[in-house]
């Protein structure tokens, strides 16, 4: 095994930058252009499961504490299918399954109260300007440690937080300000539903099936998708703005984000294939002096 690795390293050392680039893209290309059906089932199934928790709890079929656990899982799992759709991984424009890509994108993040179009275009800006204090809309989660991140994540959600304006400002800067209306409609509908449920006598159910799960899930998603893969976040550049890292919770519970560096290099590789792509690309990433931690 080590001999194979050594051979690979030796042969990589003999390549110039252009040849290395061709090899890297050739390897990455093997993992692209396939429909991740698992994500389609995940995105739509997760929404149905979350919606099903409501009648199950309200009709006393399952206890509220169980509903709370299930709802928290559902909300935490609601972002990634949309993320795949944001990158057109299910189908690009003009392909027969484009409608499915957009359907998954729109439906899956309903529990998070996050509109697909806002997420998509701000996320593109995150990719284009990762770790740029002025232009990266996710820059506000940068923190010196995990605990510092937790504090910042909570503070960012306070009503007077300036960082809450990062997404609207990004949309304005990129000429997509009309999409701010999507966020206002989503938030307005969410609040009307919450207020109605609360005054109808279901405030505790609304809190434990949506409000609290949304807060927990937002923190969890921000931690693994925004903070951990970009920490310490003081470098910009294709091979330096994202890192590989070993999560104490493992790959599944860290939502596959240990391999987020692959996603930033090749956003069209489906989440489920990033570990395999990472293993094959690792010698090239090492040659490029990427921060791969203990991964």
């Amino acid at each position, binding site marked *: 095994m080590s001999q194979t690795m050594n051979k690979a390293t030796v042969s990589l050392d003999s390549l110039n930058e252009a040849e290395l680039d061709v090899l890297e893209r050739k390897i990455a290309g093997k993992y692209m252009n396939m429909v991740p059906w698992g994500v389609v089932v995940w995105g739509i199934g997760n929404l149905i499961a979350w919606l099903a928790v409501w009648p199950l709890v309200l009709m006393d079929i399952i206890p509220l504490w169980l509903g709370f656990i299930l709802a928290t899982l559902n909300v935490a799992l609601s972002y990634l299918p949309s993320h795949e759709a944001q990158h057109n991984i299910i189908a690009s424009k003009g392909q027969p399954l484009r409608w499915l890509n957009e359907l998954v994108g729109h439906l899956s993040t309903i529990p998070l109260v996050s509109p697909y179009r806002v997420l998509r275009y701000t996320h593109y800006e995150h990719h284009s300007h990762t770790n740029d*204090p002025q232009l990266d809309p996710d820059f506000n989660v*940068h923190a010196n440690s995990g605990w510092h991140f937790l504090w*910042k994540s909570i*503070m960012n959600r*306070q*009503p*007077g*937080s300036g960082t809450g304006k990062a997404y609207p400002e990004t949309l304005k800067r990129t000429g997509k300000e009309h999409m701010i209306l999507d966020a206002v409609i989503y938030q307005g509908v969410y609040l009307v539903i*919450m207020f109605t449920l609360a005054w109808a006598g279901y*405030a505790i159910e609304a809190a434990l099936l949506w409000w609290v799960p949304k807060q927990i899930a937002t923190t969890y998603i921000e931690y693994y998708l925004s903070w951990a893969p970009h920490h310490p976040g003081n470098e910009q550049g294709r091979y330096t703005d994202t890192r590989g890292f070993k999560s104490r919770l493992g790959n599944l519970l860290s939502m596959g984000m240990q391999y987020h560096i692959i996603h930033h290099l090749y956003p069209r590789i489906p989440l489920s294939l990033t570990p395999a792509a990472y293993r094959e690309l690792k010698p090239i990433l090492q040659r490029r002096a990427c921060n791969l931690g203990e991964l």
Partner: protein
Amino acid sequence: MKLIELLLSPIAFSIGFLAPLLAQVMLAMNTELSMPIAYGTGLAISISFGIVAQSRGSWLWVKDHELGNESDHE
């Protein structure tokens, strides 16, 4: 526009959601408590929090920059 701003404000959240939530939690913990007292107390507490959140811009009173917790990049 004003109506939307009001709907998204901390005061609306405190009256629309936190007040009944607090009242229903109190009623669940103390079944002998009367509904008007529970909802009255819920409204009083939540509106107080709502006014603080509205004026200070934070439900937690403190603001990040007041604790010097800005990251190195900010």
